[in-house]
């Protein structure tokens, strides 16, 4: 009887919870056609995908350059020593970002957060190249998994008391979880969804800002 009542409630919910309206199929199709085949009489969707991916890759390169530039700039002003003229690779961000003034080292969470942000930036910047070359391998995904664990620990730490930092960590948690799912076989859709998540949430610019803020401390 008890279970019966609950089941009855759930059956009722199937009818009443967010009851879907009739969809405007033709209206939605118009938008889909416009976005998918606009301006091209007969276009192979695969070519559209390739074009979009290329565009995004260009965006990635620009974002990567910005992050690396900020990281190197901050490092040069706070380290009080010369940073080797390293080639502009993603890995250089990971090595530069954790470096801050002595004051910052008083706060252990700042240290951890700074290191984490630098390493996460490096991984996300490297992602498109890794994916294009089919090298989103076990090591790469393993690094994402490790960063995902640290994200969750930071979310439960005082480092997440700051609302902006918490929002950034939550978004990074989602993106890293998606990267972890790339292990094994994956298709372009997975990568596309990760790119979209990064774009929609402005993750790279926010990472850049966070790295700069902590470095400035």
């Amino acid at each position, binding site marked *: 009887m008890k279970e019966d009542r609950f089941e009855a409630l759930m059956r*009722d*919910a199937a009818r009443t919870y*967010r009851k879907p309206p009739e969809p405007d199929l033709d209206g939605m199709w118009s938008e889909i056609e416009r976005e998918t085949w606009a301006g091209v009489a007969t276009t192979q969707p695969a070519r559209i995908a390739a074009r979009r991916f290329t565009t995004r890759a260009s965006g990635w390169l620009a974002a990567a350059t910005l992050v690396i530039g900020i990281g190197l700039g901050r490092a040069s002003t706070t380290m009080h020593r010369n940073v080797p003229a390293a080639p502009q690779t993603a890995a250089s961000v990971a090595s530069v970002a954790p470096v801050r003034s002595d004051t910052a080292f008083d706060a252990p969470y700042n240290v951890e957060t700074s290191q984490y942000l630098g390493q996460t930036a490096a991984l996300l910047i490297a992602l498109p190249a890794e994916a294009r070359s089919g090298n989103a391998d076990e090591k790469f995904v393993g690094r994402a998994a490790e960063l995902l664990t640290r994200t969750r620990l930071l979310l439960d730490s005082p480092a997440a008391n700051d609302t902006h930092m918490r929002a950034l960590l939550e978004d990074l948690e*989602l993106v890293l979880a998606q990267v972890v799912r790339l292990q094994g076989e994956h298709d372009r859709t997975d990568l596309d969804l990760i790119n979209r998540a990064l774009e929609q*949430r402005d993750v790279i610019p926010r990472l850049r800002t966070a790295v700069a803020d902590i470095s400035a401390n």
Partner: protein
Amino acid sequence: MQQVTRPAVALQTDHRVSEPELIARVLSGDRIAARELYDAHSPRVFRLAFRLTGDADLAREFTQDTFVRAFSQLSRFRGDSALSTWLHRVTVTVVANAMRKVRRFRERETPLEDVHPFNGSDAGVDPVLRDRLHRAIDALPEIYRTTVIMHDIEGYTHTEIAQVLGVAEGTCKSRLSQARAQLRAALSDLAPGELES
């Protein structure tokens, strides 16, 4: 650009073709075939998007987004699972990605009372209990809510949900069990002693 309408599809397709054949046609640039695939799958994609968002405009946007992505990525569909499973996986991911941002706005701007307008017939269920259940579903953690919506509300099997969400079937069952326990707990003060299992 001339739009492909449902009547156009009906006129130009004189027999039912298999889904793999339709997919091959879409990949060769056949928009009639694309429309046919869309007609076959969009109602359920829209339903799922609406149940997950509770907002017709968002459901429409996410449905469009799902199909734009699906058509642009169709060459990557390997056929390991049903096309519907693949599409629903894209839908759930698109919705999950977008809704976090949407929720941040709503938490600040939308009174909870506005979320659940239901004007259907009563069917003998206490409206207070119904409303409480709806809110309890809303309040579930995302992984539980998605599972409850897909299984109990939309009628997906555990196998289907597991494929869509990319988790083990046992994980899916466990999530549903946990979710239902939380729903019972949320209703317990309205039906004391009745709903504990």
